[in-house]
């Protein structure tokens, strides 16, 4: 069989081109790799190489022809032993050859315009029951995080922690205190100051089957590493067709601390929540910090675990249980109420809780929901609450545009519009880089008064 040489597509977008020049003549011998012609694409002049060996039997499209469709027959090659004179017979005489040679993947066009089925839903289990009589121990968030890592490292030899100052210094914020002493330098690894590099090393180790906990001294520095977090950790499972993912936890303090100004004060909850393939956890209480960090370490996916420096020293009751693990993706109703729903997460909860106490004095019974996980987001819990209270406020410290609250407001308006008796109000940090001056910093963050005013507005008080 003679081989038809087709007009090639030589860029991702090319549909036709000009055949500017033939570099071989009819009757010439051709081997694979020989340049046989030049064509002009929409971008450049490109060479066409032969893929097969044989004799150029017939040039179908002469040099100088413009607008040659991709996949039109431009020449015919006679292979070994074929009659060169006969090889080209009948080819090129019927002009619409180009259309019949169209490649297969046309299905995409018909599918693209139809509505796409939504993602299948996954059920997430409720929190485990805490047996009656379980001792509750007052614990700081710092201790809870440390205990979670230590317990998981005892349980699984593939779990290790790496980061700046995690070992000998005992953690820049003392979250890894004592881990080096218990687990040794093989599993508690001090890295150089090299976020991009060690994030990638962590992801590579996770791809090889280890379960790294990568500590960023703060998430502000993780911006150096965000390519590895998103392009390597989050996307590989999908790009490999499910063969290979990255079971890794990236954790560290996130958001504004105090008086450290713009480069060290911002919340990344909304940033990472944008990315399919990541889970994003942002606990408020010590119990949630412990139960969710243990879950994050066991999770086979990359988990962004956003802590807060100011909360590290806060104490909460933590149940004294051998293995206290909480479900990622489940919100917690911090306080039930009937008049308004206040949704928050992380340090945002401090504003919500203080506001609720004052509102109670005004006779307003607010329900507070702590999201705990930002992705996957437990919208069902939020919507069930809105259906009861008919009013919604979202509080967070991050920037206002494309915030977590914006997304929740959008979803609630789509799924529970008829239940709303007032617009959803989102309270966020101000739309400015964090200032240094004490008074300006205070102004840039949300405050309790704003929450109270918002509740008054939606309850028409």
């Amino acid at each position, binding site marked *: 069989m003679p081989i038809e040489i*087709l007009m*090639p*597509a*030589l*860029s*991702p977008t*090319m549909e036709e081109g000009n055949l500017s020049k033939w570099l071989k003549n009819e009757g010439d011998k051709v081997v*694979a*790799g020989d340049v046989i012609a030049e064509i002009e*694409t929409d*971008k*450049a*002049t*490109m060479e066409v*190489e032969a*893929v097969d060996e044989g004799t150029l039997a017939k040039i179908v499209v002469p040099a100088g022809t413009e607008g040659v469709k*991709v*996949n039109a027959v431009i020449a015919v090659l006679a292979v070994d032993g074929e009659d060169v004179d006969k090889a080209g017979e009948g080819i090129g005489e019927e002009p619409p050859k180009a259309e019949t*040679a169209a*490649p297969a*993947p046309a*299905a995409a066009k018909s*599918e693209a315009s139809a509505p*796409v*089925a939504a*993602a*299948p839903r996954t059920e997430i289990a409720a929190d485990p029951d805490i047996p009656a009589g379980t001792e509750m121990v007052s614990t700081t968030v710092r201790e809870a995080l440390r205990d979670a890592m230590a317990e998981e490292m005892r349980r699984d030899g593939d779990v*290790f922690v790496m980061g700046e100052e995690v070992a000998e210094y005992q953690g820049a914020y003392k979250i890894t205190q004592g881990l080096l002493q218990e687990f040794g330098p093989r599993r508690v*690894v001090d890295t*150089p100051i*090299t976020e*991009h*590099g*060690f*994030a*990638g*090393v*962590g992801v*590579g*180790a*996770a*791809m*090889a089957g*280890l379960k790294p906990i990568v500590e960023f001294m703060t998430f502000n520095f993780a911006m150096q590493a965000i*390519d*590895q977090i998103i*392009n*390597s950790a989050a996307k*590989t*499972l*999908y*790009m*490999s*067709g*499910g*063969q*290979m993912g990255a079971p890794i936890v990236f954790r560290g303090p996130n958001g504004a601390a105090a008086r450290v100004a713009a480069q060290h004060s911002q919340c990344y909850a909304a940033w990472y929540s944008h990315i399919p*393939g990541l889970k994003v956890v942002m606990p408020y209480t010590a119990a949630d910090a412990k139960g969710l960090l243990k879950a994050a370490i066991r999770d*086979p*996916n990359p988990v962004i675990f956003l802590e807060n420096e100011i909360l590290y020293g806060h104490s909460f009751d933590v149940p004294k249980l051998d293995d206290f693990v909480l479900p990622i993706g489940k919100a917690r109703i911090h306080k039930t109420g009937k008049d308004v729903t206040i949704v928050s997460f992380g340090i945002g909860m401090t504003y919500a809780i203080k506001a609720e106490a004052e509102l109670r004095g005004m006779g307003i019974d607010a329900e507070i929901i702590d999201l705990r996980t930002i992705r996957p987001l437990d919208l069902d819990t939020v919507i069930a609450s809105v259906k009861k209270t008919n009013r919604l406020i979202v509080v967070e410290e991050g920037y206002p545009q494309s915030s977590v609250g914006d997304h929740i407001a959008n979803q609630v308006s789509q799924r529970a519009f008829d239940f709303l008796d007032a617009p959803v109000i989102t309270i966020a940090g101000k739309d400015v880089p964090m200032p240094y001056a004490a008074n300006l910093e205070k102004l840039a963050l949300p405050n309790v008064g704003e929450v109270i005013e918002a509740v008054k507005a939606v309850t028409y008080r």
Partner: protein
Amino acid sequence: MATAARKAPAKSKSDGKMGLSAPKPAEFTKDEELAAYRHMLLIRRFEEKAGQLYGMGFIGGFCHLYIGQEAVVTGMKMALIQGDQMITAYRDHGHMLAMELSPRGVMAELTGRRGGLSRGKGGSMHMFSKEKHFYGGHGIVGAQVSLGTGLAFANRYRDNNNVSLTYFGDGAANQGQVYESFNMASLWKLPVIYIIENNRYAMGTSVSRSSAETDFSHRGASFKIPGLQVDGMDVRAVKAAGDLATEWCRAGNGPLILEMQTYRYRGHSMSDPAKYRSKEEVQKMRSEHDPIEQVKARLIEKKWATEDELKTVDKEVRDIVADAAEFAQNDAEPDPSELWTDIVL
């Protein structure tokens, strides 16, 4: 050559090679020459076919061909033991074939079909096989260097004697995370071979226009990582360097850099007309240094194979590639439900 690393103790020289010198090309047996010929030819024919399918519209997006560089992955593969890992960037088809991933699976991934190695969801630049210890296939220049260092970290953590072969190009060699990784690999004595495939052009920018230090074997000097320059067009030289480097890593000496001096015949990707270099330059490499022709000439000269026998090999390779192409063109596209799978476990 396997003992060269030990023979050359820390006689640190100022040339950045730390007392190491490039070994002589390996002496190949007849079987090794024939195997190298077949493996390189498979890559060459596969890539030519991929180029053709791209031209026909079966392969979309970016498609970076490995034609000209075949000796690098082929020679290095010959130095590996079971469990050694390989990772590279997006010019990855040759690496996958060298790691014995199925030609059908690779080609069907190029055409975005359900039988592709990533079920059609990765494409030319993103393929993986945990089973074959191939860790991608990465689209971001330089990212695979930190990841490959992480693979070596896992080897060291498990104390398993395996080595991570981390490939990158002369272009990636200027990325910051490469040096962050060098530092950690040397500090922690990780078993990683950094294989810099210097094909002389970072897309359209020649090494002399992009690199202050064009001897890439010196790039580890600040981190006490020795490096060697290797004739990457001679599969025997690559094999010898691979033996030395794997031995070096397995002995616990930490990382090593191999600068493979190679050349790509095609443009950076299918849509690159490669106007930044002369036709004569390309022609000279093809006619004087072609890795496959070198092996062929030796096989004929030593009377280890006749032209006809080599034609038979050629035919067998063509049949494998034709079968892969046939499969890749006719396999179904992924089921639409695949849109939502493999996002999280």
